């Protein structure tokens, strides 16, 4: 089955959002484009936009490959997506508030109790805690795939600490440097103000007790973390401090950072450290990345932690399959953006089906991420399928399965000209007293022909994502 190409679907010819770009592209000298492609790589390497790949010592700093053909969405397509995303994000926050308080949805039997209670991502420490401004997940990345002109599905919600937004910004910056004339010809909605929006959004959810303008900081695990570039980039663009656990301690009931002039109070902490490492007194005692006692300060309402601890229960892959129910339960309406049909292997009937159709399905670990620990049935050998089936039978509840969808493609520039590759889309959502979605996002592209795995850790690349101002 041929995939739907967003630029050149076989049936209908060039799609409208790409018309102006295609006109421009046809006027370009191919040699010049190749040169621009190399320029882009130089820019990225020079500015140090690299990420670390775990387990590859030699190449500890790699670039995420960048493709110069933009992924283009019309204004109309975008409006439809944002409605669905807004609804979903509202539901995610309502679900978190409910799960850590009255647990109505469990009582109503819409989500199985055990799925929450026995879930590692559920933090009993958060029961009864109401975060400042009532927001749990402040920064969300919703992974969306498309399979036809009108069918968009949510592949995954990232409600903990979604990464990649710096690539969205640097990709645009690079495109504007390489092809300034394109942006004069085509009206693309800007994404550059994301850092300001993020700062405003974080300031709006400061603790009630904050006097004057809040002090905001970004908490990073340190310069050896794979996403360190992004942490530094965001702190820099927001004009706030980039702190590590070793800079922080609890002073007089507040979290404070060690400056050259002594300790200074922090009101809002945008943390890029996982829950388990946040507070050695509450969670993992061996953590040197967090702040001893920060959870006490949090419970006293004296600091905003974004995202709140315990939000992982909302983006867990086992919970994911219940998202249509969750959206309907809290918003009273059917979900605008659908889920991909998902088999929960914990259910005997589903497990039977999955085992019988293993070579057709994508099977994922419930708690995995980054494309590790998954099986892409159609691309796997018989032996790989058999081995995976054994793992599946040993611990069915650890897995979910989904059909291998014909993800839409968007062309990339190769040595032989344009060639279609599968893409997905991660728009970024900010939640404070309102919900804001930056028009654009991160388009991830599987660079290998036919491959469906877009993760950067598995050889995926990125594209600039345009939302047209039409």
């Amino acid at each position, binding site marked *: 089955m041929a995939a739907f190409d967003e630029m050149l679907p076989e049936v209908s010819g060039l799609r409208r959002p790409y018309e102006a770009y295609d006109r421009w592209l046809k006027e370009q000298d191919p040699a010049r484009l190749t040169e621009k492609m190399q320029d882009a790589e130089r820019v990225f*390497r*020079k*500015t*140090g936009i690299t990420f670390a790949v775990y387990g590859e010592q030699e190449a500890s700093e790699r670039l995420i490959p960048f493709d110069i053909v933009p992924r283009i969405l019309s204004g109309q397509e975008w409006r439809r997506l944002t409605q669905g995303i807004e609804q979903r994000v509202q539901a995610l926050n309502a679900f978190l508030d409910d799960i850590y308080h009255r647990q109505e949805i469990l009582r109503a039997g819409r989500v199985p109790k055990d799925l929450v209670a026995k879930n590692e991502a559920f933090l009993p420490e958060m029961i009864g805690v109401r975060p400042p401004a009532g927001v749990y997940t402040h920064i969300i990345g919703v992974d969306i795939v498309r399979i036809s002109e009108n069918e968009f599905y949510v592949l995954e919600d990232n409600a903990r600490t979604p990464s990649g937004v710096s690539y969205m910004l640097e990709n645009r910056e690079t495109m504007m440097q390489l092809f300034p004339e394109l942006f004069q010809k085509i009206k693309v909605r800007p994404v550059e103000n994301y850092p300001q929006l993020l700062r405003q959004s974080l300031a709006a959810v400061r603790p009630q007790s904050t006097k004057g303008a809040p002090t905001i900081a970004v908490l990073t695990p*340190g*310069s050896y973390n794979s996403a*360190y570039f992004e942490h*530094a980039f965001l*702190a*820099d663009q927001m004009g706030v*401090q*980039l*702190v*590590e656990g*070793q*800079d922080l301690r609890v002073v007089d009931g507040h979290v404070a*950072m*060690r*400056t*050259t*002039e*002594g300790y*200074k109070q922090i009101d809002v902490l945008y943390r890029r450290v996982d829950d388990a490492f946040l507070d050695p007194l509450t969670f993992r005692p061996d953590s040197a990345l967090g702040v001893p006692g920060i959870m006490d300060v949090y419970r006293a309402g004296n600091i905003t932690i974004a995202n709140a601890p315990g939000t992982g229960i909302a983006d867990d892959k086992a919970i994911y399959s219940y998202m249509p129910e969750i959206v309907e339960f809290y918003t009273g309406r059917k979900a605008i953006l659908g889920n991909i049909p998902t088999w929960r292997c914990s259910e005997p009937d589903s497990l039977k089906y999955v085992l019988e159709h293993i070579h057709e399905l994508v099977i994922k670990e419930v708690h995995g991420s980054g494309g590790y620990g998954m099986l892409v049935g159609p691309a796997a050998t018989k032996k790989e399928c058999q081995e995976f089936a054994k793992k599946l039978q040993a611990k069915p509840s650890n897995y979910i399965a989904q059909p291998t969808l014909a993800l839409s493609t968007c062309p990339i520039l190769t040595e032989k000209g344009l060639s279609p590759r599968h893409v997905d889309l991660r728009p970024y959502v900010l939640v404070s007293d309102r919900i804001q979605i930056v028009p654009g996002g991160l388009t991830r592209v599987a660079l290998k022909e036919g491959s469906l795995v877009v993760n950067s850790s598995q050889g995926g690349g990125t594209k600039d994502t345009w939302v047209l101002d039409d």
Partner: protein
Amino acid sequence: MLLGRTANGLYWMNRYIERAENMARLVDAGLRMALTRTQSASEEWNSVLLSAGSDVAFSQKYQDYTAANVSDFLLRDTSNPSSTMSSIETARNNARMVRTALTRETWESINEAWMSLKRMLARPIDERDLPTVLDAIKRETALIRGSFYGTMLRNEIFDFSQLGTYVERADNTARILDVKYYVLLPSLSWVGSTLDNYQWESILRSVSAHRSYRWVYEADYKPTNIADYLILNVRMPRSLTFCYRFLGEHLKFLADDYGERHACHGTAERTQAMLKRGSIKDIFDHGLHEFLAEFIRDNTRLGDEIAQDYRFY
């Protein structure tokens, strides 16, 4: 407002950039000596190692004091934490850590220096290429300095960076002098021998001052003038007095900015006053070696006090 850890990162980033360059300068001077005085070459390389503070580590690894061994150890050996390659790597790691405090130009110049030196120092250096490599190191560090001075705001970030540069530079100049102090002592024959002349030029060369010396003191090398130039001259950018003038200035900016003085201010001012008061004759009367040993000790203490007073850890 500046994090203590960031101030620490800036300070060490600049110490290591300075050190990366100083290693190249020392090897450069050693190379010149070895070329002109082939008989005592190994002795000269030993002095170079002493000045670099790397003599013990070197002797654990090598027996022969040759150009190839010493330049390999001081320029590209990553097991030597002070080699140019290690220094530039440490400088870059610190720069990465304090990335948000640096201008894009400064960060890029450090990152590019690291990339190009990593490439250049990946394989052992052919002796014929050594001058090219030394030039490349000096050029890369000059580019970093250029983007730093050209683009950084003159605030506390700049002050802590400069403190690192000048503490390292003062230490380096004092060590070079101390290793060779005996060739500067007044000898019975008031006209230096040819040997002395080479030695004196080598000292000047290792602080890149062999040409500028002549502009200030005219043609002849005289030990008292050389010592005067490297210790007391106000305008020579690697002299102890010059370093302390700027250490004093940046510490004062910090005291004014923060409205608070610390132990480090007293220490820097005492050294500055001592350098201002003394003449080169006093220093020789007191004992050049004793003077330098005290200076190095006080300079190290200043570094420790800065770290403590500004909460680096």
